[in-house]
């Protein structure tokens, strides 16, 4: 390579001299180092192979039949999610902040009582007081038994997942953290095709999350995080929302994303991790935040 080297390339005298003398250096990695590296490589390869095996389709007929059924189901779910909210009255979702509505009469309140199968804050698996997520929340009626069980299960305390010393910064996001966990449990119980279609729909939302991270828009981060199954979707350069927030020195956004479960170690296409980027930028507060959440 080195075609544009200032003083030659492979034939450069200094480079040739370096290579000749370097061959005399008998130093090499310790055998234990080699073994550890190859052992880890084998371990990761076998875990990937196991994942691929689990995803292997059974037969062409089964695949086509399942694709048709699930495709139709997914299309109807997506249609319902995208179109239905437009025709619903604006006050029909109790998940919205109560103070946003004028006082209603008791008759009006009775009229707004939703049946058990209707979309509600509980159906969306959002903690009380959290903003609604009309685009991606799945109505309880559309869920299978296991999903309903997951939705009905009490949420574990979010605080327990937080590293020590982060409660003050991360506390406002505890409710969103719970909502994310419940959403993940419920979505995991959906048929794969439905879940896949939700992921496809969430692509623009992933982009909005990265934009919110760049701008340090905590409210938007909280809302999007409650809707998205994965907070680590990278852009074309492999940068996750955490990385983008780090590069723009949005410390509060980084802390919020990490408290919501984002990966502190997701590297970009160049192998640069958020912690390394923060260190290179000399941003001590960011380094501290990333280290608290296991960044390395």
């Amino acid at each position: 390579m080195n075609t544009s080297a200032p003083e030659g390339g492979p034939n450069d005298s200094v480079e040739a001299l370096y290579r000749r003398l370097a061959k005399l250096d008998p130093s090499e990695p310790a055998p234990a180092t080699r073994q550890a590296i190859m052992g880890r490589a084998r371990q990761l390869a076998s875990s990937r192979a196991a994942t691929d095996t689990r995803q292997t389709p059974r037969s062409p007929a089964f695949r086509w039949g399942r694709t048709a059924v699930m495709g139709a189901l997914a299309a109807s779910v997506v249609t319902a999610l995208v179109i239905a909210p437009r025709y619903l009255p604006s006050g029909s979702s109790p998940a919205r902040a109560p103070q946003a509505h004028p006082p209603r009469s008791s008759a009006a309140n009775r009229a707004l009582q939703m049946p058990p199968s209707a979309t509600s804050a509980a159906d969306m698996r959002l903690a009380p007081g959290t903003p609604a997520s009309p685009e991606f929340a799945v109505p309880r009626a559309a869920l299978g038994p296991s999903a309903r069980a997951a939705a009905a299960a009490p949420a574990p305390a979010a605080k327990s997942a937080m590293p020590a010393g982060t409660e003050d910064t991360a506390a406002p996001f505890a409710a969103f953290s719970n909502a994310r966990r419940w959403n993940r449990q419920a979505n995991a119980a959906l048929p794969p095709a439905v879940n896949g279609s939700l992921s496809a729909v969430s692509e623009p939302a992933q982009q909005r999350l990265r934009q919110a991270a760049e701008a340090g828009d905590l409210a938007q981060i909280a809302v999007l995080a409650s809707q998205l199954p994965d907070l680590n979707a990278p852009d074309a350069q492999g940068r996750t929302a955490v990385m983008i927030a780090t590069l723009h020195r949005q410390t509060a956004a980084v802390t919020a994303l990490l408290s919501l479960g984002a990966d502190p170690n997701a590297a970009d296409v160049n192998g640069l991790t958020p912690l390394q980027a923060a260190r290179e930028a000399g941003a001590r507060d960011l380094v501290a935040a990333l280290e608290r959440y296991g960044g390395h």
Partner: protein
Amino acid sequence: MSRVDDSDEALINRYGRGDVTAFATLYRRHEMRVWRYIKRNVGSRAIADELMQEVWFAVAREAPRFKLTARFTAWLFTIARNRVIDALRAMRRQVSLDALGQEGSAMLEQLTTGTDVGPLAAVVVRDQASALALAIAQLPEDQRDAFLLQVEGDLSVEEVAAITRSPFETTKSRLRYARAKLRVLLSEYA
């Protein structure tokens, strides 16, 4: 008979899909280059061993995410450089000639006790190897980093500039100064 693509990029993608032999081939191909780059930067063999593991662990972990937007070697040496920088910061010191001297002594001990090298040849080899180590160690850190990236990573000036996040002209100057200094320091062995 179809010919198997054994380029670095094809191998890392194959490993990303679970082919461990592809990783072994890649490792053998680049092991010593990465090793020399790390060791000449940090000086200590123990730290170099540790960093070597970290670099290749990262390669194995991130393999499925490798994209063909960059050459594999550029990606590999970016990872190696990041680990080296972290280590140097942790060590809170520059690589000292003393440390290199200790490492060099151990290396020379191996050389002189080798069965293939006679006493006189060992002295010659010892002088040359230690001269190279000392010459590299005498380069300023940014020049040493750029020079080692280029010769060990077989990278272009553009790639070195991108990895070090430095302007192209700055990188070119660093390489020119590094070569000029090495030429003087190693003139005896040219």
